[in-house]
């Protein structure tokens, strides 16, 4: 571990980096173009007119500011689901890690096995059950299924195993603290990096969720951004009455929609990296 650097390695990695950033660069370039230039200029470079701001304005105000509503919905669904999922996982993971009770291993195994269930297998029956409960076309239809994160539970269990030393729990018990008080006042803080990790990954999962809201929601006012963009995109592709101009909205909208998640990952990177370390090593 000396301070020497390898130029060859840096260049090789730079090539790889270009590959990963190229489509995003295209997206940025495309969102600066007018509809006409979008179809008639070279894709990977800017056209003569830079109309990024007018595109943004058009995208955001189109159809009575529906884009901002979709973004707001997405943030709401993602934050509530991710917060709830992280809390359930922290509580459950701690329980599985720190208590011995009948069925511990069996239950945990069942949860892990559930990762393998294909999502489409669940979508239709969930829809039918939700409609019987009157939950279809409400925010709960998106939030409730997103509260279950088997991977999150797995991560939290592994993390809790070592991050919260048994000795500290024991000491707290001797001091007369109740089990839940120990969890909330002692363990929770130690679990923070793990919780942030689960929070971020469920945040991504809900943010990118497409299939579930697609079938659960009928009312465009409740759409998250993915379904909204796909709806615009299918307007552009279904023909009959609408025009290719929508495509420009789809592109600018896509560009705007990826910014918040990227920002969240950049800001919180210290946490999720250490949280993941636990899951990876102890597998």
């Amino acid at each position: 571990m000396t301070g020497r650097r390898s130029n060859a390695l840096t260049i090789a990695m730079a090539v790889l980096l270009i590959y990963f950033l190229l489509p995003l660069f295209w997206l940025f370039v495309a969102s600066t173009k007018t509809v006409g230039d979008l179809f008639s200029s070279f894709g990977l470079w800017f056209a003569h007119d830079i109309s990024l701001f007018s595109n943004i304005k058009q995208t955001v105000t189109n159809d009575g500011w529906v884009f901002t509503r979709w973004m707001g919905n997405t943030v709401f669904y993602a934050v509530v689901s991710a917060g709830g999922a992280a809390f359930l996982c922290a509580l459950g993971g701690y329980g599985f890690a720190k208590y011995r009770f009948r069925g511990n291993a069996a239950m945990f195994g069942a949860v892990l096995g559930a990762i393998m269930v294909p999502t489409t297998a669940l979508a239709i029956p969930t829809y039918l059950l939700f409609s019987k409960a009157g939950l279809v076309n409400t925010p709960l239809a998106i939030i409730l299924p997103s509260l279950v994160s088997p991977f999150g539970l797995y991560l939290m269990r592994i993390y809790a195993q070592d991050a919260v030393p048994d000795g500290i729990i024991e000491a707290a018990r001797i001091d007369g603290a109740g089990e839940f008080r120990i969890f909330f006042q002692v363990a929770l803080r130690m679990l923070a990096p793990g919780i942030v990790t689960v929070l971020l990954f469920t945040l991504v999962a809900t943010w990118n969720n497409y299939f579930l809201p697609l079938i659960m929601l009928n009312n465009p006012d409740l759409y998250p951004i993915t379904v909204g963009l796909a709806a615009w995109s299918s307007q552009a592709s279904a023909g009959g009455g609408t025009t290719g101009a929508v495509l420009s909205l789809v592109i600018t909208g896509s560009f705007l929609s990826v910014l918040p998640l990227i920002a969240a990952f950049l800001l919180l990177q210290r946490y999720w990296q250490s949280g993941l370390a636990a899951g990876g090593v102890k597998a």
Partner: protein
Amino acid sequence: MIINRIRRRTAVGTALALAAALALAACGGGSGSSSGSASQAQAVSQSDIDKAMTTPTDLTFWTWVPNIQKEVDLFQKKYPAIKVKVVNAGQGTPQYTKLRTALKAGTGFPDAVQIEFQYIPTFALTKSLLDLRPYGAEALKDQFVPWTWQQVVGSGGQVWAVPQDSGPMGMLYRKDIFDKYGIAVPKTWDEFAAAARKLHAADPNVSMTNLAQSQAGVWFGMLWQAGVKPFETPSADSVKIDLNGDGSKKVADYWSGLIKDGSVSADADFNDAWYQALNRGKYATWLTAAWGPVFLEGSAKATSGKWRAAPLPQWDAGKNVSGNWGGSTTAVVQGTKNPIAAAKLAEFINTDPESAKMFATQQFLFPVTKALLADTSFVDRPLPFYGGQPVNKLFAGISDTVDTKFQWPPFLDQTVSDWNETVGKSFANKTDTSSALDQWQQRTTKYAQNQGFKVDQ
């Protein structure tokens, strides 16, 4: 008539069903309906209608027509008691998927819904649509172009929807490209093929047209023009499937010949590559529907002034026939609590002169009423994108040449999906389209049999 029997059995007990079952009385004798039985629908009385239209009511209307609130506002102005909530639940297939799941769940479905012509039998089969005869829909018949009305009428005489807009097919062509290569506007498909080969020889980067590998709608339009009857439904539980008869094979051989030698392309349509191709002059023509001209204007701005419109080339010189691609209707959903108000909404927005004209002039939907197609302020309007040609006039003329007897299958989604994987695939891979037709026929037949239909090939 089996359809009446089914209807009676499932719907007895509800006021709705009573009305529907007795509606045949209004059908005018001689239609072969089971006269004398108790299965005839009774018209809802005017006083019931008046009462319903003055009772405060909330309606939900699913449609993807942009800014349709303007038309709906006219309706609400006339009937202040009725509040209509307009919901865009997706365009075409996504909306149908939602409608189906909502109907299956029994909650969350709208009162009125936009449905494309070709999907009416599919939704009629699953008893998702309300017969509009009891609400006076039959009286509207004469206001509409005959083939559009025929498309909304069921095999038992039911009126499943009110037409909203249509897509009689014509040909948009690049005058500049035709001029450059000395091509005259083709009047027959033979001339079209000759022009295609000439153009391909002169410039391999331009194709005469693009027959999209993803667009079963155009294929059906081509069959329609050629007088082919791919589907007939003699009764509700039987279907006649003829996807690979002589007529179809003629059309198939024609196109697969052109696609194989490269003079016609088969790119998937309505994606960005296709938009770019239109903007950059890859296609010399677009075989499209009456809604196509305005659509193109918005999508290929770079080519303004270069396009013109003409009728579709003909199979027989001197004839003048066309088919239809696209267009929608307004239907009322079976199970609505407000059948009268919903039926009147469907009627009003499509027949009120002001509302119907708004569809044509604000949303640029191609009209289905005889009055609008004769309205000079609509048909004579010159379009600068087409060098000042009054394109609407041309398509209004074409609308009269659409055959009235074309029928859709009661399971369109599956038929289209199978088309993509047989006929569409043969376009893409430049393989034999004729044998793809046989596969299409076989898959569709098997599906129908699996679903319990009596299939007559």
